[in-house]
């Protein structure tokens, strides 16, 4: 049960990190995040599942594809919107629109069926009373590596620092001579790539279909709300909380009651602590 919580938490963290990255840079809640996750899964399905490309090479392709999608979204949609719109709600609704577009595109191109791929590794580990299939372990390890890699990247590279600066203060970053639009597009691409990677990893365990997007988007929202929107450690913490809440809840209660409690808990939590566990107050 707790082991399962760990596996869930690590994977959720990957999703949450992507969405929190985009949020911190642009103050946009990326509604299409789940759809990006889904597309990442499909890229792996086609490359690894159908054409027999090496799994890790497929993951690299996921980064490339989603990076381009994210970059285009920011470049052609959100940048434009920010310059034209008079109300802050507009970007958020545009994000909803992009989610709808991606989902419908996926339905047209990938079809409606559930897809899966052969396991990358097989076997099941038994730890005490708990079972840990090797596939899950692999996904967990890869996700952990990615998370650590991302944190190092944001902390120590030039681009990472520019992203952080942008997240803190748009104006100042602009004055510092950084090309804000370009960095923002790169940030969006990075966030999208993370969502896609999460999809590429998790699809080996759970499979994928065109309709899963919204579910993951909502989970991502819950996580960053718990942790504090736009805060990197907050996203990880949020993922841990949600992962364990789900694992423990499902083990003790019927499924729908678990989520009922999670939602009610989230509402009550936000009422008392709108900034999340680690975040600064927003708005």
């Amino acid at each position, binding site marked *: 049960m707790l082991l399962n919580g760990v596996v869930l938490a690590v994977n959720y963290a990957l999703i949450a990190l992507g969405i929190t990255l985009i949020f911190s840079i642009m103050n946009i809640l990326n509604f299409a995040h789940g759809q990006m996750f889904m597309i990442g899964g499909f890229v792996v399905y086609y490359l690894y599942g159908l054409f027999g490309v090496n799994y890790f090479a497929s993951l690299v392709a996921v980064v490339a594809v989603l990076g381009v999608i994210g970059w285009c979204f920011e470049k052609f949609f959100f940048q434009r919107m920010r310059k034209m719109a008079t109300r802050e709600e507009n970007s958020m609704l545009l994000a909803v629109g992009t989610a709808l577009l991606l989902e419908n595109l996926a339905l047209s191109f990938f079809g409606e069926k*559930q897809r*899966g791929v052969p396991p990358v590794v097989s076997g099941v580990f038994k730890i005490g009373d708990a079972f840990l299939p090797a596939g899950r372990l692999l996904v967990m390890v890869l996700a952990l590596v990615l998370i650590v890699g991302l944190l190092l990247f944001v902390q120590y590279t030039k681009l990472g620092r520019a992203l952080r600066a942008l997240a803190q203060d748009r104006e100042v970053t602009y004055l510092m001579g950084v090309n804000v639009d370009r960095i923002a597009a790169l940030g969006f691409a990075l966030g999208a790539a993370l969502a896609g990677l999460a999809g590429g990893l998790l699809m080996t365990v*759970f499979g994928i279909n065109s*309709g899963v997007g*919204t579910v993951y988007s909502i989970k991502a929202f819950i996580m960053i709300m718990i942790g504090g929107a736009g805060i990197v450690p907050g996203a990880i913490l949020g993922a841990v909380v949600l992962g364990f809440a789900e694992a423990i809840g*499902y083990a003790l209660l019927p499924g*729908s009651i678990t989520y009922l409690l999670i939602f009610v808990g989230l509402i009550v939590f936000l009422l008392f602590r709108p900034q999340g566990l680690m975040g600064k107050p927003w708005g």
Partner: protein
Amino acid sequence: MRIIHFYRRQLLNGIVLLALGSALFSGSLLAEEVLKIGVLGVMSGPAASWGLVNKYCAQTSAQLYNEQGGFEIGGKKYKIDIVAIDDRNDPKLAVSGCERLTKQEGIHYIIGPNVDTTATSVQPVAEASGAIYFPYAFQKSLYSPPHGNAVLGMIASYQAGPIIYKYLMDKRGVKSVSFIARNESDPLDQRDQGVQAAKKLGLEIKSSNDTYEPGTTDFFPVMSRVVSNGADLIVLSGVAPADAPLLIKSARELGFKGILSTETAQDIKILNEVAGPAAEGFISVGGASTPEIRSPEMENFVERYRKIAGEWNDEAGTKVYALEMILQTLRKAGPEAINNVELFKKAMDNFSMKNPFLKEDKPLKYVGTAYFSQARQIGVPMVVNEVKGGKFQTLFVGGVE
């Protein structure tokens, strides 16, 4: 200002194009006698495959008949025109879709909708406008008097359940059972019926209140609860084709050694892709789809279906029946029945023909009297499959009265 004008022009162009497009599409099928059949179901979103399979089946059969110059009723050949509407599983859209089919298109025979929510929503409209519809939803009130316009298109799980359980008790020594259901109207209903049937047969019910949310992807937690009850058999009640392989995989990964079964149709490709070897031994209900019992006509259909839909879906083995039954019953009832469903209903009562999709010579009838006290169900043969070596293998063929 110029920019705005530019966009406005584009917008206008778009609207004109749209209008033109729709005019073209509706104008293309004129000339001969046309028999329009409606398909109403969910064709987008997570459950899209249910409605899409209905649509593809109807289109495939229609294409096959139209190539032979149409379907003959009362000496006249009719081109079959399929009008499909996506209700997105939204009752609001189902109602307006049904209005559109019945009132706008003048259609009296509709295949679908796919779930209780939408099926019960279209009931008043269909009855008021004199249309027969073929839902793939199990709510009994749809088919029982005083309602009489709905015809169940498949074997209901509460019909298949007892037969499967009995078989497994006799042949596999199953003594206890656990249920897991998708938390929606139809599946929960199926589970309750399944539990009753199992009790009647004397099976020990180890657990029955585990459910999962539509949209769940990680079934590990819920499955570990079910597996821990230690039943010989786990019944997946009303699981969607997308969920079944994940459930099976989780159960096997958790070390479950017993039998897994479901009472709904599944898709072998999805099972293989997602569950892989874990799908071995999984028992499900299909239509006349397994290769060993198919007739040549069915083979022909399968091939054409592949062309239209891109790939075969085993669900289609069940859903192929609806249009065939509509057409054959119309032939028997005569051309007046096209616009008068009362004649159709009368013809249903003692309708019988050779099942064209089976190799074996078996009759195809309307059944369901035992459940709905009137014959409001297509007598689809109940083929129980087991996954063996990545393929469905027919365990036995049963039927419903």
